[in-house]
């Protein structure tokens, strides 16, 4: 448990990182729809991830419309993979714990 990255383990941030892990880049609207968070909440989580160096946020324009692009950085990808591995390690021994119990005769 102590190996788990607490920043990623939080459900909203884990969803954001998992979404970004499977794409090259995504905009704020896509993340808003998929995470079902409020704009404020999503912004806060993205800032936390950006501060940790996990994501890269780029403010740009599509024509005259402002657009916020978000990408997972190499550090974020490595942290996500490490988190998944840690979760797997935690879950697998629990499966192996199924030892046959000897009933009293």
């Amino acid at each position, binding site marked *: 448990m102590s190996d788990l990255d607490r920043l990623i383990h939080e459900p909203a941030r*884990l969803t954001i990182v998992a*979404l970004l892990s499977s*794409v090259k880049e995504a905009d704020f609207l896509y993340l808003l729809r998929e995470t079902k968070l409020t704009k404020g909440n999503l912004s806060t989580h993205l800032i936390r991830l950006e501060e940790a160096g996990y994501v890269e946020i780029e403010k740009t324009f599509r024509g005259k419309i402002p657009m916020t692009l978000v990408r997972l950085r190499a550090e974020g990808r490595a942290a996500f993979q490490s988190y998944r591995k840690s979760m797997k390690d935690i879950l697998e021994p629990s499966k192996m714990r199924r030892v046959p119990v000897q009933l009293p005769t």
Partner: protein
Amino acid sequence: MEPPVDIDQVTVTAQRHWMEDGLSEIMVGLLFIVMGGGLLVKLALPHWLTLDLLTSALTAAGALGLSWGFKRLKQRITFPRSGYVALPEPTRMRWLFMFAMFGAVGGASALVLSAHSVVVSAFAAVFAAIFLWSGIQYKQASMLWEALLTLIFAVVLTWFPSLSGAVGVLALMVMIGASMAVIGAFRFRNFLKANPRPQEMQA
């Protein structure tokens, strides 16, 4: 202890999102119609080199035009409504694998078409299996319908002895393309209803 979210489910969201507007189905459907139809025309016309080249060029131009139109529609209609997402670039190994697959399928198709002894039902089974796999993988009910329709088309084609062999396979391709385009159009209409263009685009 379980992860707080189903990571495997979340990671396939992008692929599902890419297909949710129905545009991919319309595009692939039209591509099938253009390619299958183009080859059918080629078979029907006299085998003059100029005509062969012309039909090939028109088919290729049609495919390129569809690809361009698909990108434009995504940018103008889908992204402002449901958000922009770019799928990752294929790796070098994936490109090699894709080229090898295209080469193998193209070579096998050319061999089978030249032999004039194509079993339409075998092609239908392959298409149906691909649709079935895609439907299950990306949880797309429309793909399951496509699988069923493909098998129905194959049965219908057996009633027409003139549509056997290579012509039958191409006719099947056009029929699958038409059904994909129609299903995609319905899905596109539903997508537009469910996702009106927002006034305020970004936070």
